């Protein structure tokens, strides 16, 4: 499929060559991508300023993709609004021209959620990256959606607080994207995922009205529309400001690296730790292949000869942390850990986490492409699930690197492959499908934190009944009755907007043509 797509793109590309030469010295200028868009682009430029709109093929090509392997996105003009008012203006112009709108943060998503379908106006939030207000008394900060997750925690650091959800991509991903995907992260085991940390969201709806969902009180009245919005993948409106909960920094932290000769010993340790009543801030597992890839980049001192490692972190008051640390070490030894190491200082701790959080990128040290799933399985069945994954992958003659949030059973099997090898794409998709089906059969869920996007859309019917899906479509329609917000995502096509067919047809043209 990727190959066919590449050919289409190349074909389209050739056609467009030469038809749009222009002055090289005006990076911000943006003539229309094609004649049909000229009026749209002119209106967008008039609404928010010419330097905030790009409609050339290079900009659209890059706005058509995220960090997933999905490559059928097709962006229309790309806007870089600086304020809620700019977003409102863009939505109004798009509506006037009968075009949809797709939001985009840093484009680090792994399910194609930010890949625009049907040449919508893309609203990039990268220029809305300010911290609006910190209210320490109430433990809340208002931030713009384009603020990078890690930048937020850094800005909060002098106040002794942080923003708890910490996706692996936190150095690059945005709060708006986190809200859209209800993102998790290693520390969500103890602290909860994004929805537990977002108190209110200012949203521009598809009719360009601005509403605030949720409020800052502990028990808001009425239906929890904020809860419905978080995780809606841009299909219910565009977040333009987010009120996030501030979490006090723990007084003490202990980070431990537990190494095992056998993956099942590691999995048994995870179960035993939770059963013991300890709630670690994080329990992460990596298998040997993953550790090797990561260690080559981060040089964090991960042992390449262990079959599996657990990165366990406990935090809280110093006394409690020390006790929990000792109990965890004892449990690990009881489960045949070959070594138990505690990070000596912040530096060592940071290195261990850097290794863990660069796992996806580090895959390229093994193979040039990867396809990632994000299923959640009951923690007690981890060993069984892992054995099945290895079996499936072996049968399809592929490589798998396992890195996952072991504490909550959220798997990230990384299928590493080289798409240049004939048949590799097909084998990867077949193995991916089997892994998903096996996870669901084990009583699991389709996604833990990466979202459905377009990549996992087709699996929704496997997880939800027709009635469920219809109700989800109705919920979405109550926010966006005309399917103008990030259309074509999450819901299988039979349940989503009626204009999907038309969107698909226009995609075939590709951005260069």
């Amino acid at each position, binding site marked *: 499929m990727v190959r066919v797509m590449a050919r289409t793109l190349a074909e389209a590309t050739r056609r467009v060559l030469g038809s749009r030469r222009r002055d*090289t010295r005006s990076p911000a200028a943006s003539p229309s991508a094609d004649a049909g868009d000229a009026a749209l682009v002119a209106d967008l430029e008039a609404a928010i300023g010419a330097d905030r709109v790009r409609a050339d093929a290079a900009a659209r090509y*890059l706005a058509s993709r995220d960090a997933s392997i999905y490559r059928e996105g097709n962006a229309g003009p790309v806007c870089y609004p600086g304020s809620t008012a700019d977003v409102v203006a863009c939505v109004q112009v798009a509506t006037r021209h009968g075009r949809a709108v797709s939001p985009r943060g*840093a484009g*680090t998503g792994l399910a194609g959620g930010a890949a625009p379908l049907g040449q919508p106006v893309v609203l990039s939030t990268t220029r809305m990256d300010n911290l609006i207000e910190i209210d320490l008394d109430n433990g809340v900060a208002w931030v713009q959606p384009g603020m990078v997750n890690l930048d937020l925690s850094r800005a909060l650091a002098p106040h002794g607080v942080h923003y708890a959800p910490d996706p692996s991509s936190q150095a690059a991903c945005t709060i708006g994207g986190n809200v859209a995907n209800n993102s998790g992260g290693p520390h969500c085991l103890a602290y909860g995922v994004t929805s537990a940390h977002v108190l209110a969201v200012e949203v521009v709806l598809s009719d360009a009205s601005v509403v605030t969902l949720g409020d800052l009180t502990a028990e808001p009245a009425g239906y929890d529309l904020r809860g419905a919005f978080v995780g809606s993948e841009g299909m219910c409106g565009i977040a333009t400001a987010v009120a996030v909960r501030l979490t006090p920094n723990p007084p003490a932290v202990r980070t431990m690296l537990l190494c095992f000769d056998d993956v099942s010993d590691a999995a048994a340790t995870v179960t035993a730790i939770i059963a013991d009543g300890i709630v670690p801030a994080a329990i992460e597992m990596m298998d040997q292949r993953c550790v090797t890839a990561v260690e080559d980049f981060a040089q964090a001192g991960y042992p390449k000869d262990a079959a599996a490692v657990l990165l366990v972190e406990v935090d809280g008051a110093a006394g409690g942390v020390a006790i929990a640390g000792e109990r965890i070490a004892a449990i690990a030894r009881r489960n045949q850990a070959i070594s138990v190491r505690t990070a000596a200082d912040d530096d060592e701790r940071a290195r261990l986490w850097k290794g863990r959080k660069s*796992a996806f990128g580090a895959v*390229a040290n093994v193979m040039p492409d990867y396809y990632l799933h994000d299923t959640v399985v009951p923690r007690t069945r981890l060993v069984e699930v892992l054995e099945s994954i290895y079996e499936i992958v072996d049968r399809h003659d592929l490589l798998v690197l396992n890195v996952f949030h072991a504490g909550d059973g959220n798997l990230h099997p990384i299928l590493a492959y080289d798409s240049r090898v004939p048949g590799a794409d097909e084998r990867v998709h077949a193995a991916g499908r089997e892994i998903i089906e096996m996870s669901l059969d084990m009583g699991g869920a389709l996604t833990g934190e990466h979202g459905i996007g377009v990549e996992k859309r087709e699996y929704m019917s496997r997880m939800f009944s027709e009635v469920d899906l219809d109700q989800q479509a109705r919920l979405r329609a109550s926010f966006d009755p005309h399917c103008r917000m990030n259309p074509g995502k999450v819901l299988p096509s039979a349940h989503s907007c009626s204009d999907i067919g038309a969107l698909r047809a226009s995609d075939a043209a590709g951005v260069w043509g």
Partner: protein
Amino acid sequence: MDLGLNDDELVACVSCGLCLPHCPTFVITGRDTESPRGRIALMRAVQNEDAPVTDDLIRSMETCVQCRGCETACPSAVPFGHLMEGTRAALAGAGRITPRWQRLALKGLRHRWLLMAGSTLLALAIRLRLVPTRRLGLPARMPLRRPPLRTSGNDVWLFTGCVMDAWQRDVHLAVQRVLEAAGVGVEPTGAAAPCCGALHIHAGLESETKDMAHRVMAGLSGDDRPILVDAAGCGAALKDYGHLLGTDEARAFSARVYDVHEWLAGHLDELRSRHPVAPLDLTVAVQDPCHLRHVQRAHQAVPEVLAPFVTRVVALDDDGLCCGAGGAYSVMEAELSRAIRERKTAAVARSGASVVASANPGCSLHLAATGLDVRHPLELVDQALSSSRA
């Protein structure tokens, strides 16, 4: 268009986006076209998918500072610098980038007498206020006369280069005094090695750079003395000759090259035992030149060498984000370059330092143009040594 890039290097990027916050142009513009990930995707589109080389695509490549901050951030070890150099070489070869006047100016760097005479003329013009220095990003004052280079021994070479030798010979002399204080005999390379070619390879002039590399290697052959470099950009270029030329001889040459701080960090005891020093009463912020931090990865030697000689050394809190100088970049892409610089000057202000130490002449000129007091780290060491002696 075939960009001639190594396909394995090109496909190594998995689009994870961890480079984004480390790219100075993405941080300023927020646009994927000005990001490492985006630039790589466009290179791929051109090389593998036959995408047209549009003017916008060329802008995307031209706006790259080539700081290589993305490389140290990349978990996939994508050799972005080589990809960008290859892309620029292909674009320059097709006449799509690097205008004729720039090629001519770069040619001048190879001719030492021309460079020296031109620099003196420029210095004179600046004194007569005939040149809008601020707008062109030039120093407000340049030396009319240069004290001669002198040889004090043959333990090491001190690479003097082109523009730096013409504009900042004082720095070379200070570096030489520091090395001599450590008991090392120094021979400046002077005319033996006129220019390293860093600016040329950045501009995509690959064959010129190779010629220059051969000339430098020939000038410094005949022994295996260490070649010490006090300009991070030149050091990075000399260390890359092995890759550029791909010969054993070039690799052996590159292995002899050290950033002067890197080398001194291994000889700090000699320096300190010979000369008990009273540190200068200064708070100094260390600016890490990208070609020291991201390319040579030797930036930690600077604070190490500096620490005994000033009262306080502070690190900047910006993760080593580029200052926007980028060799000729500050002239070619003045607007972006200045926007990037503003973030660096803000970081300096936050640090509370009164002096900035920069181990690269391009960065130092670029930052000094904002009115900051910028010195080469070894100028400060030299000052501490000489005031202790007095």
